[in-house]
Structures are given as structure tokens and as C-alpha cells.
């Protein structure tokens, strides 16, 4: 784990007022991210890829709040991503709600689920946690599979295409991929800003302390269990938001979005990019999706390549692409 950008910033901004390049980067991370996201559709080979990077990057950012910063390896985050997507789709498709209400409800539902799953899983001892989160989120998968009148079961949820978005008097043609991208990007940017605030806040220091040494954090006077639950819920909130964006983008919600394979993919993206850093998750999502795109050009078995790369990263590059780059730069 690398020391986070914010703690580095705090150190760098010592009494002499000296701020190194990392601190400057940390201070501008949100505007920088937004700028990069704005440019993404123009820089990447396809707009479809850009939207996916946007959505999965956001999931990874939300996940990273729990994994990279709090140190809890959850294997069940697909439940929140998927619930955000399903609730959004159901609200639009079956209840005819306007898109913004559906998004709000999707986020609320995902966060509430995160709170409940967090409550059940945090009471387990360290290494159990990963198993329990996987199993509990798999429960959600099977419930969705069975509740097919509501969710579409195995075939997924369909029939809730959003064609126009009314935003403060403007009408945006949501079927235009580029316009859709920028609308979704507004939400992602807002979420990134929220995450940045959380990381810079006193609570941000608490979760890092818990990651570093839970026992010591408790002895210092922090209610570790309650803090973990808050981090878990916030993490679920961001992932649920990403889920709502996914639903709006695809106009379908596949059942597999709830399967633990999706949770595993989120873990892989986060690790590939670099857990515990702000830009890492987006780098990881980009790397993962690019790999998938490129490798599937010559084989349909891209998963074996991605899986092998992941194994290599765990063995030799545990800090991920961005994390390793940061550490290397700091070492020079």
C-alpha cells in the first residue's frame, strides 16, 4: 500500500510551506480527473470504450475507498453496482418514474444494501470478510434470478430506454453517444469530488489508520467497527451510482452484473491500477478494458490473458500500474 496522496500532502505542507509535486497533484486531482474524462472519448479508439472506462472507473473508485483506503477486501461489490442498475431500470421501466428519480432511488437502494451487508460482514474476523461478502452478494444474485417478474431473471432487465434527458430546462438527446457520455460524466465528476472530500476529511485519516493498524486505531479512541461500516456504506453508494449510470447507458441490465465474477473484475481493475491511490482505479479500469478490447481481436479467450496478467501483478507488481509509477518516481 502506498501512503495516500492526502497524507503525503499533509506531510509535504510542513511549517516551511514546501509542497512537493505529489502534493500539488493531490490538490488538483479532481479537476485533473475531470479534464482527462472530458478528453477520453476523443483519445480512446472508441466511444463505447470511453463510456465503459467512465462507468467501471467509477465503480473501481468506489471500491477503492473500502479496499485501498480502509484495507477491507470485499468480494461482493457487484451487489451494489448491480442493485443501482436494477433499481434504476425497474423504476423507469415498470413504474414510469423520471430518470433522475430513478437514479436517486438506485443510489439509495444500493447504499441501503451496502449498509445491511456491511453490518453482517464487518462482525466477522479479518480473512472471513472476503468470503462473507462474496456469499452475501451471491444471495442478491439468486434473489434477482428468482424474482424474474421484476428483474427479467436470466434474460436481464430490458425495456427502459431513456431517449431524452431534461436537465434544468435543456433537453439532451440521450441517444447521441457523445451527449450521453457527457451527461454521465457530470455524475461521475460529482462522485469523484465527493470521494476526494471524503479522503481529505478527518474520516479519511480514520480509515487509513484502520487499514494500517486496526488495533492501534481502536486504542487511540476510534470505534473501528462503526467506522468500517460507514466506509462500507459510502463505498457502496459510489458503486451504486456507477450502476445507475450503467443502466442509463446500456438500457439493459444483465443478470451477470450481480455475479461475483463482476465483483472479482472490480477487484482486478482496482489492483491493476493501484489500490490506495486516487488515480489508480481509473488507470486500472482503462488497462483492463483496453486489454479486453485488444486481446479479443485475436481470441475470444481474453479472460485467460487478463487472469494471467492479474496473477503476474499480484506476484510482482502489487502496487499496480499507477502505484508502482508513483513509488518509482518518489524513489528517484
Amino acid at each position, binding site marked *: *500500500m*502506498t*501512503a495516500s496522496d*492526502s*497524507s503525503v*500532502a*499533509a*506531510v509535504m*505542507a*510542513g511549517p516551511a510551506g514546501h509542497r512537493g509535486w505529489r502534493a500539488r497533484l493531490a490538490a488538483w486531482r479532481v479537476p485533473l480527473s475531470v479534464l482527462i474524462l472530458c478528453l477520453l472519448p476523443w483519445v480512446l479508439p472508441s466511444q463505447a470504450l470511453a463510456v465503459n472506462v467512465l462507468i467501471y472507473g467509477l465503480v473501481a473508485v468506489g471500491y477503492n475507498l473500502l479496499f485501498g483506503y480502509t484495507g477491507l477486501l470485499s468480494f461482493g461489490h457487484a451487489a451494489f453496482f448491480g442493485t443501482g442498475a436494477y433499481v434504476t431500470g425497474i423504476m423507469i421501466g415498470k413504474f414510469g418514474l423520471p430518470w433522475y428519480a430513478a437514479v436517486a432511488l438506485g443510489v439509495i437502494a444500493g447504499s441501503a444494501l451496502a449498509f445491511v451487508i456491511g453490518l453482517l460482514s464487518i462482525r466477522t474476523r479479518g480473512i472471513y470478510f472476503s468470503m462473507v461478502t462474496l456469499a452475501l452478494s451471491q444471495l442478491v444474485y439468486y434473489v434477482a434470478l428468482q424474482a424474474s417478474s421484476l428483474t427479467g431473471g436470466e434474460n436481464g432487465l430490458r425495456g427502459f430506454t431513456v431517449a431524452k434527458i431534461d436537465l434544468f430546462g435543456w433537453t439532451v438527446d440521450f441517444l447521441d453517444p457523445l451527449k450521453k457520455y457527457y451527461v454521465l460524466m457530470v455524475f461521475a465528476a460529482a462522485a469523484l469530488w465527493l470521494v476526494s*472530500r*471524503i479522503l*481529505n*476529511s*478527518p*474520516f*479519511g*485519516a*480514520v480509515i*487509513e*489508520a484502520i487499514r*494500517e*493498524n486496526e*488495533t*492501534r*486505531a*481502536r*486504542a*487511540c*479512541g*476510534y*470505534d*473501528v467497527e462503526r*467506522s468500517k461500516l*460507514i466506509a462500507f456504506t*459510502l463505498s457502496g453508494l459510489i458503486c451504486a451510482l456507477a450502476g445507475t449510470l450503467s443502466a442509463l447507458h446500456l438500457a439493459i441490465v444483465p443478470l451477470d452484473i450481480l455475479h461475483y465474477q463482476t465483483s472479482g473484475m472490480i477487484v482486478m481493475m482496482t489492483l491493476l491500477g493501484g489500490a490506495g491511490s486516487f488515480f489508480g482505479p481509473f488507470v486500472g479500469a482503462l488497462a483492463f478494458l483496453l486489454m479486453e478490447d485488444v486481446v479479443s481481436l485475436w481470441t475470444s479467450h481474453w479472460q485467460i490473458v487478463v487472469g494471467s496478467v492479474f496473477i503476474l501483478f499480484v506476484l510482482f507488481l502489487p502496487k499496480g500500474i499507477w502505484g508502482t509509477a508513483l513509488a518509482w518516481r518518489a524513489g528517484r
Partner: protein
Amino acid sequence: MSVPLLAVENIGRRFGGFVALEGVTASFEPNKVTAIIGPNGAGKSTFFNVLSGVLAPSSGSIRFKGSDITGTPQHRFAHLGIARSYQITNIFPELSVHENVRVAAQAFRSRYDIWRNRAAMTELDDKADAALAAVGLTSRRGTTAKFLAHGQQRALEIAIALVADPELLLLDEPTAGMGPEETKDMVALLERLAAGRTILLVEHKMKMILGLSDRILVLHHGRLIADGSPQHIQTDPEVRRVYLGQNHGYA
């Protein structure tokens, strides 16, 4: 007659069938240094863990400043005014020395605020720097904690406990793993800290304890077998038997 700062009555602690502590009763006046000694397995760590809230006693009670705190969850102890350091260094390895102490100080100001920028809380920087100065780590302020030498990490342990501004400081083998030079530095630090604070420490180094403590408690097989001044303890026949029998002398 003033209320003792800390009073334990008939403390017992079992682990399944194993009795780690039994019938320990003692009270501690403020502003004194008390050492807890005993052979390995005597129950010192368990006693410490009970006093710092890591374990709840199986029987008996703990009173702090007159209030019953038995069974209070561990994370409330720091807020009561009880802070501890650990025998095996327990710091935040990837955070800087300054951050280590700052986050400890933050526990008394803000634990759940997800909005405010914590860099603006400059009073925490001041408190952290003061604690670092007290233990002599100011020059290592920006170093990542895992890169500190062992003795410096032990000092950081103390700084983290200190920044809580505790009335009662529980120190578990503060000189663990230290050579004679480092031990001397630590003893000097402890003497400075003892002014105006109540300190309980577990230690093995007899010479150090005899010089530092106002009072010594001796545990053996989970029971309190002696309680008194250093002079009294040195001449107590029971203590001599336990220590000579165990071939225990200077650590």
C-alpha cells in the same frame, strides 16, 4: 480521603479452563509511577489488557475516578483518559511519524466528519508536534514510520499514547528490545513524563524499575503476591522465592 484514580477489585480473567488472573485487587493514586512485574506467564499482559479495555474481566470490577468502567468497549478508554503503548510496536507503518501522532490526536476532535478538509485543523499539527518534541522525534517528523529504527519506533509508540493527554498512561514494556543506551534514553523520557501523570508500566528490567517506580506490584500465576515500595519488594521473601526459583534477575 481522595478517590483513587484507578481501583480494581477482585479482577479475574479466564480463557476457557485457564485462569490467567484471579482476585487481583489494587488501587492507584494519581501522579505515581507503578511497575507491574512477574515471571513470564504471570498474567501481566492479561492484566494490562483488562486495564486498557482490550479484554473484559471475567469477574471483578474496575473503577476509574470513582466510576465503574467494567466492560466499557476498548475504543472509549482513550476518551476516558487512559492511553497505552504496546510491547510489540504497534504504529501505523505507512504513515509518516507526524501523521501517526496527528491521527491519534484527531480522535478527540473529529471521528466521522467526511466533508471538512482535515489539513485545516492546524491545532492537531501543533499537538502532534508537541508530542513529538516530548519524545525527541521532531527531526524524524516526515519519515515514514516503518523506516524508523527500533528505539525510535518505541518512542513513537509513547508519543501516540501521549498525544491523548491521558491522566493514566499504561506502558507495556517500553524498553522491549532495547540495548543499554536506548534504555537509558527511555528511562530519562519516562522520568520527564512522570511529572503530573500517573504511569503504570510492565517491565522486566529490575534495575530500571527500582530506580523509576514509586510502587511495585508483583504478579505470579495470575495472583498479586506483593504490593509495596521498591525497598519493601526487594526484601519480600515471597518475591525472592518466586524470582530466585525462576532464576530471574536482570532481564
